[in-house]
């Protein structure tokens, strides 16, 4: 294998991985903390993407501000969903949780179809993100580098803000046993809403950042669902670093197969996942149950 090929695989693999990570990080947070398998995660990403595409045009605001607004709207929608529907499902089994979020996904898909039509919508990036950067042996689109940077920032911030703070403890307590958590003074309502909103906002951010590679269209939510779940499962049930490394592993495997035997790229992706899960059922970084 030539050096150029190897480095190309690495560069493309890593950027692809970072996009996977950006989109899944919100999911791995809600799953790790709230233990809710949110199958509508993709719907939040999709909503973020579509809003980011349309808000700047319709409101005439700068693209960057549009993105912030889009993320905020998604967080708001998430809180509404959490307050009115999801909260009824914390005590129910995984399956019911999956299904109510699938229901949401269907509704979101129908809504997006109605509002934006069924074809691909491109998310216009701020001017500064355009163009390519020359790496010597090849060039790489600048927005991909920005996505990589975003991914790193997100993982750092989340590590500080969630994993290492009492917030994370309270969320996990609330999810483990809500009545008892309340009985020792935890306001589970607020905690849930906040966590879910942050997870959805991260989804929106990931959706926007990844829109170049996973393009926005109404079936987005269901189409990439399996990939999102794969990253989270391989990473270890909501472990942030887990999904970071899982994204790297799966991203690089799939990318290198694309360079070598493209027909088998998806098969390789799923095979990797099966192998990892058979040998480490709790995922790469998961805690043993």
């Amino acid at each position, binding site marked *: 294998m030539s050096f150029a090929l190897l480095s190309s695989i690495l560069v493309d693999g890593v950027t692809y991985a970072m996009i996977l990570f950006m989109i899944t990080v919100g999911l791995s947070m809600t799953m790790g903390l709230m233990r809710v398998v949110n199958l509508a995660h993709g719907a939040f990403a999709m909503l973020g993407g579509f809003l980011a595409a349309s808000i700047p045009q319709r409101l005439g605001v700068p693209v960057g501000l549009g993105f912030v607004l889009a993320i905020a709207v998604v967080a708001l929608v998430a809180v509404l969903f959490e307050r009115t529907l999801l909260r009824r499902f914390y005590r129910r089994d995984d399956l019911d949780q999956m299904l109510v979020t699938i229901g949401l996904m269907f509704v979101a898909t129908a809504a997006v179809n109605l509002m934006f039509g069924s074809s691909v919508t491109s998310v216009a990036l701020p001017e500064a993100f355009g163009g390519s950067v020359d790496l010597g042996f090849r060039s790489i689109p600048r927005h991909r580098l920005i996505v990589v940077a975003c991914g790193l920032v997100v993982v750092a911030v989340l590590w500080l803000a969630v994993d290492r703070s009492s917030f994370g403890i309270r969320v*996990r307590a609330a999810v483990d046993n809500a009545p008892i958590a309340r009985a*020792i003074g935890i306001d589970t309502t607020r905690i849930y809403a906040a966590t879910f909103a942050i997870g959805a906002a991260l989804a929106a951010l990931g959706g926007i950042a990844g829109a170049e590679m996973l393009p926005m269209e109404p079936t987005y939510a269901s189409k990439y669902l399996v990939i999102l779940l794969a990253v989270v499962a391989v990473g270890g049930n909501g472990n942030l670093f887990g999904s970071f490394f899982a994204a790297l592993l799966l991203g690089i495997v799939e990318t290198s197969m694309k360079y070598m035997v493209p027909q088998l790229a998806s098969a390789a992706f799923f095979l990797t996942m099966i192998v990892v899960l058979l040998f480490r059922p709790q995922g790469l970084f998961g805690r043993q149950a």
Partner: protein
Amino acid sequence: MPSPPIELRFDDVTTGYAGVPVVEHLSFSVREGERLGLIGRNGAGKTTTLATAIGLADLMQGRIHFGGNDIGGATTYARARAGLGYVPQGRDIFPSLTVEENLLSGLQGRSAGVALPPVYALFPRLKERRRNGGTQLSGGEQQMLSVARALVGQPRILLLDEPLEGLAPMVREELMDAIVRMSDQLGVGCVLVEQHVDVVLDFSTNVIVLERGVAAYAGSAAALREDEELLNRTIGIQKC
């Protein structure tokens, strides 16, 4: 003490689950520094009574006052923050948290540096195992953790649902001593549910005996101790 003592009071409370009453027409009151015992057979409604106080069962009739406010409609966490401490029956340790995290979860905004050392002093075992998963502890250790988790929130009235279950005799003594001390020195009020009648009688000033959801006796512990007939009938205890 400048302010009047905080009091938990049940007035003619009927309560249960999903509309089915389990405990009926119960009235009692506990103040800071007082100790109330609650005994009765399996399924008599002891747990339900405590759960009602903290807001985990349906209050169907009657009023509950705490610190001068009617808390019958208040949220559970607000009751906890107002100073009701709860040690649930069966421990209910949060499985995804470590021992220390379980304790931190009960802090209610207090500083860990202040709140943890006293409970670690009370249960040195917990300090040793503080990085372990909460449910990896032995049964008795979990019980210690459950009590400790309530204590870090510095409650004014403590609801203890079978806190001694699974504890070794010596630890039981230590724990009961500690609670008595807390109650005497810090003026914490206690409601104790416990299977061992002797323990309850030694501990409490007043006792309620529940029989199928109704108070069959409410009065001083000393008087109850003498009433063997009642004890036998309601709890099935024969004193030797």
